[in-house]
């Protein structure tokens, strides 16, 4: 083997070892996040409140007894409002907390890579939050066969107007929406230096998602500032609008015999992806500055 081949093999092997360390550290950090969540009474109380509220809406509304699509429509706004609030609670102190205790500095002396730390924090918090959202929505989905008068004896797998498959799509899209909004709050947590700033930014984000962006779009359309043909793109820019559009087009589909006009599905999916990647990139960039290794 030539000297160069030997050097390439060595570099490859050290690259593989580094990648393995990054993944291993990521899971160590993620495990700590999960353990932190189950030991934080406030987060457990919020999770319980969310679950009870969703069950209450499904039980009391027309959805649980009316079929999967009515249930989706009942829960859609509810998920749009509550998931950003939950994401703020789960995410806004996730990285800032370690910065404030000084543990972020200490972690860096353990040669933890930014990807391991941010990825671990996000993965741990995301697992907990997605499990909560998906678990709760799936449980209330089970109400439908029991409460609907015309009880289905099987889950439809075709494009029937009402089917469990459509509801599963809604649950899947809710999980994706949860991941995107959580990424945004983790990004805020990494980029800010004080609790007050982080909370203010996270609350402003939640408010903008739930109310602000849609209100601005409606006002823009009404005043003619926003042209109608550009609406699909603008709807995709807001995670809430993009999520709503995807749910209406793929999990609801037809209302009153007419197809739902809910923007462009590809643009909506792309919008969510850009928010997700952008937020996590900000978190990676801002979590700590790049410092040259002092080891020689």
């Amino acid at each position, binding site marked *: 083997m030539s000297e160069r081949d030997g050097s390439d093999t060595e570099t490859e092997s050290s690259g593989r070892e580094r990648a393995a360390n990054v993944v291993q*550290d990521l899971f*160590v950090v993620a495990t*700590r996040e999960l*353990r*932190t969540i189950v*030991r*934080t009474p406030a987060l457990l109380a919020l999770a319980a409140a969310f679950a009870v509220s969703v069950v209450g809406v499904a039980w009391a509304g027309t959805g649980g007894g009316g079929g999967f699509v009515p249930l989706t429509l009942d829960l859609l706004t509810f998920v749009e409002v509550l998931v950003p609030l939950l994401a703020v609670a789960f995410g806004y102190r996730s990285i800032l*907390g*370690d910065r*404030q*205790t*000084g*543990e972020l*500095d*200490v*972690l*860096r*002396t*353990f*040669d*933890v890579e930014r990807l391991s730390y941010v990825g671990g924090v996000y993965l741990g918090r995301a697992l907990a939050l997605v499990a909560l959202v998906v678990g709760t929505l799936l449980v209330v989905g089970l109400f439908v066969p029991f409460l609907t008068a015309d009880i289905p004896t099987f889950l439809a797998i075709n494009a029937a107007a009402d089917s469990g498959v459509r509801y599963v799509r809604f649950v899947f899209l809710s999980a994706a929406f949860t991941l995107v909004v959580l990424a945004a709050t983790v990004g805020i947590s990494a980029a800010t230096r004080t609790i007050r700033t982080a909370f203010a930014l996270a609350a402003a984000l939640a408010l903008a998602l739930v109310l602000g962006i849609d209100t601005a779009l409606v006002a823009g359309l009404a005043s003619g500032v926003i042209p109608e043909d550009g609406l699909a793109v603008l709807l995709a820019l807001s995670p809430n609008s993009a999520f709503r559009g995807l749910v209406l087009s793929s999990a609801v589909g037809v209302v009153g015999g007419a197809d739902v006009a809910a923007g462009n599905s590809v643009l909506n999916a792309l919008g969510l992806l850009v928010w997700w990647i952008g937020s996590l990139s900000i978190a990676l960039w801002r979590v*700590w*500055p*790049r*410092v*040259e*290794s*002092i*080891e*020689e």
Partner: protein
Amino acid sequence: MNEDAPATALRAQAIDQSFGDVDVLSGVSLSVARGEVAAVVGPNGSGKSTLLHILAGIAAPDGGSVAVPREAAGARSVGYLPQRPAFRDGFSARDTLGFYAQLLDGVDDDDVTATLDRVGLGDVADRSVGSLSGGMTRLLGLGEAVLGDPSVLLLDEPGSGLDPAMVERLFSVVGDLAADGTSVVVASHELPAVEAHADTVHVLDEGNFAASGSPAELLTETDTDSLSEAFLRIVRAQVGDSTVRAGVGSRRSAAETDDDDLEVEADE
């Protein structure tokens, strides 16, 4: 500790650091030998914590370089105790160190137990970190810093807020670590403890080391009886004066002061 380890464990050269228009460090150089306890003392705001951040590789200096020879024996190169260590609530002291241990190759639960015993927290290992006293929290921070046998230990005011017995205990742990070959840089205001335990004392003032040497050398050079008196002479202050520094200013020359007999030099 590795017997074949290099004699110099830490080398910092010409470190410059500014925050906005305030110069905090200006051309600071420091070399710490294996097994040496080097103390950095200085007035509040003189840049001790900033220097330790840079030495730990946490902050990049505006200028200069830091080098720590790769240590074959330890699982990491540098251990760091921040000025106010704090840990996540809801975890025990053992859980906390266990988390850090998982980030190091070859460090397991037995090492965590041994580290807790080493810093004197063996009896409270399973107590929640939220219920630890300030002194115990600092000792847990020391435990986190020494985990994985780093070749260089950086301690930022480890004795701050501790009673004299705890300060003595902490410095005796530091002395034991140095005896085992660990190099220690400690920023501290506990001058009696520094005088008793440090091999070298660097007085950081107005951006650079105003004096460096063993405690005995500093006493001789300043013609004083204690490191506290020597410190006051070097930073040109009287007992009761405010010594708070807000960056590098124009340093008064010895000729301009009443202490004409003071002739201490920076080590650069």
